């Protein structure tokens, strides 16, 4: 996973790169890189070929008199890269709390500089941010309206997809055995767990196609296909269209409606 670090302090930057490179975040290994400014960050995210995250000082580049607010670029980045996980680094003080609250309302978590900014602390915070991103897309799918254990099963499928986990991991999240999970899926009129995870990957890939500048092979890599041919094959099977065609016409909408139709047919 590409992890881009935007921070004015070279000591902070190098400590983060040293501490986070190669560290595990969920299913990924971090490839941490320092970024010089907002424009460079946008370029790097456009070209990022795998799952990506950003660790930044939200005040980067602002004059000291304006440092109690986030840089306007933060908002633009969030809207341009909705599938990227953003985490802010801020020093611990009462004066920073309004900014913590404002970032939180935008869906950006905050790591307290000098307190829980250890490599392990940041890796765990990144893990939370990645899982939350995909869950937001699933909520958009309307899963909360499903009967019985349906929402919980799909929520677990979403988390498992992000973690690149298997059916065993999905059952572990729900604290049930695999046979029980299969039974629950049947009772909630959902596809079996393996099929759900396949749908999870299709939905995540479709979301990335729509909302990132990643290449098709980058998307395939991000969701765990060995090559873009794997993604093409699965899209043809589930969505009856190629990734480039779907990118033009709205991949997530198509994936979402096909998925809902497949549920209704059960």
């Amino acid at each position, binding site marked *: 996973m590409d992890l881009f670090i935007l921070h004015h302090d070279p000591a902070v930057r190098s400590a983060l790169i040293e501490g986070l490179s190669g*560290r*595990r975040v*969920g299913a990924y290994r971090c490839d941490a890189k320092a970024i010089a400014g907002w424009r460079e960050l946008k370029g790097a995210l456009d070209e990022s070929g795998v799952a990506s995250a950003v660790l930044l000082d939200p005040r980067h580049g602002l004059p000291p008199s304006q440092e109690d607010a986030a840089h306007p670029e933060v908002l633009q980045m969030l809207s341009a890269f909705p599938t990227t996980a953003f985490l802010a680094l801020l020093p*611990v*003080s*009462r004066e920073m*709390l309004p900014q*913590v*609250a404002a*970032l*939180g*309302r935008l*869906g950006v*978590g*905050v*790591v*307290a500089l*000098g*307190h*829980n*900014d*250890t*490599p*392990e*602390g940041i*890796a*765990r*915070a990144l*893990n*939370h941010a990645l*899982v*939350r991103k995909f*869950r937001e897309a699933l909520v958009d799918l309307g899963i*909360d309206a499903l009967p019985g*254990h349906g*929402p*919980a*099963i799909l*929520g*677990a499928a*979403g*988390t498992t997809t992000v*973690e690149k986990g298997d059916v065993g*991991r999905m059952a572990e*999240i*729900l*604290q*049930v*055995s695999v046979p*029980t999970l299969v039974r629950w899926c049947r009772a909630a009129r959902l596809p079996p767990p393996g099929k759900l995870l396949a749908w999870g990957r299709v939905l995540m890939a479709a979301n990335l196609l729509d909302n990132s500048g990643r290449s098709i092979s980058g998307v395939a890599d991000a969701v765990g296909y060995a090559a873009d041919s794997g993604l093409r094959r699965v899209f043809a099977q589930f969505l009856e269209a190629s990734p480039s065609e779907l990118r033009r016409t709205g991949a997530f909408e198509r994936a979402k409606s096909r998925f809902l139709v497949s549920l209704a047919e059960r």
Partner: protein
Amino acid sequence: MRRIDPGDLRRLPPSRILLVGPPPLHTVLEGPPPELALPVWLLLSDLQLLATRNVEQGGGPVVRGSALAHGSPADAELREPLRLLDAAVREGRTVGTEVGVTVALGRIVAVFRERGWEMAAMTVAESWLWVQPESSAANLVAGSLAGDAGRLGEAETLSARSLIIARQAEDWAAYCEAGLALGEAHRRRGASAAARRILAKVQKRGRRQGLKDAAAAAAHGLFTLAAEAGDLEVGRARAEEALHEYPPGHERRALLTRQLAQLSTERGDHRGALRLLSGIGEAAGAPVERALRAASACRAAALVEDRGRFEWFWASAWRWSYDESARAAWTPCLMELARAAHAMGDGERARMAAARAVEPAREGGDEESVLALRDLLDPVR
């Protein structure tokens, strides 16, 4: 209490809160002053990071030091809970099962709720649940807040989780508390049969374990279900059981008696209602309860055309309708007085009471009462 085998908990119903990842923490900053919000936010962040599941072993420390080093609040009620949390975090304890964490987070939620910081209380409760998903108390408290916020499905799930955990641990006080919450959540969602089943179990368990308050509260809940179904006979029987089990002087005795009187009124037994309401000592219950009781008694007296007692209770309820300590009861109290005066054929007083009720109803955003008052005012104009 029995120690729980993790295998015993495999059948817990899944909570959505636990599946969406740890709750965002910015809402904990809404309400508490900055000197308190800062350590609470830091400690909750730390706890969430420490409780992250599916991580590599031996990844190193999560925090650099004490969250309280960045500022410790002077708040006497919260100093100790924050110190407990800080110690657990600094020492990297297994926060998912740490008793100090359970006690501290429970206390913080309670204090935040008392102070009216509902959003912040909800965030602390959901974080607590995320950190300690197998704590009966965390499930119960998060469920109660979900119920307050109208998320009844989540309230049911969390109360059911709390109940299962408490049953496995053979912690019968917690079991009864969770069962009462589950019964209430079922009732509010309209699942009366399920509510009745769980409340009957709590009543039985409470009696067996000598938990009289729990047994009485369960009988009270069963009474409420009967009252909602309009079943006076069953309601009376359940109310008698509850009154038998509530200790003398228990605050809820007065409430239950008034509710039973109300049911009697609805079923046309106005004399029975007046007898019940007159039988409660005037000083019983909190001011809100006393105000409502006086107004109900006034209406019952009007319905049996007992002018003397009508005047007596009118004077008492009218006084309460100016008393700040009973402010929450002003609208229902004045509405009941308007109905009483109307029944007594006193249009002038009915209009006066109804007109006075409009303002507190509007202030409280109680649109339903405002509409009901319009109906009440129409025939007496």
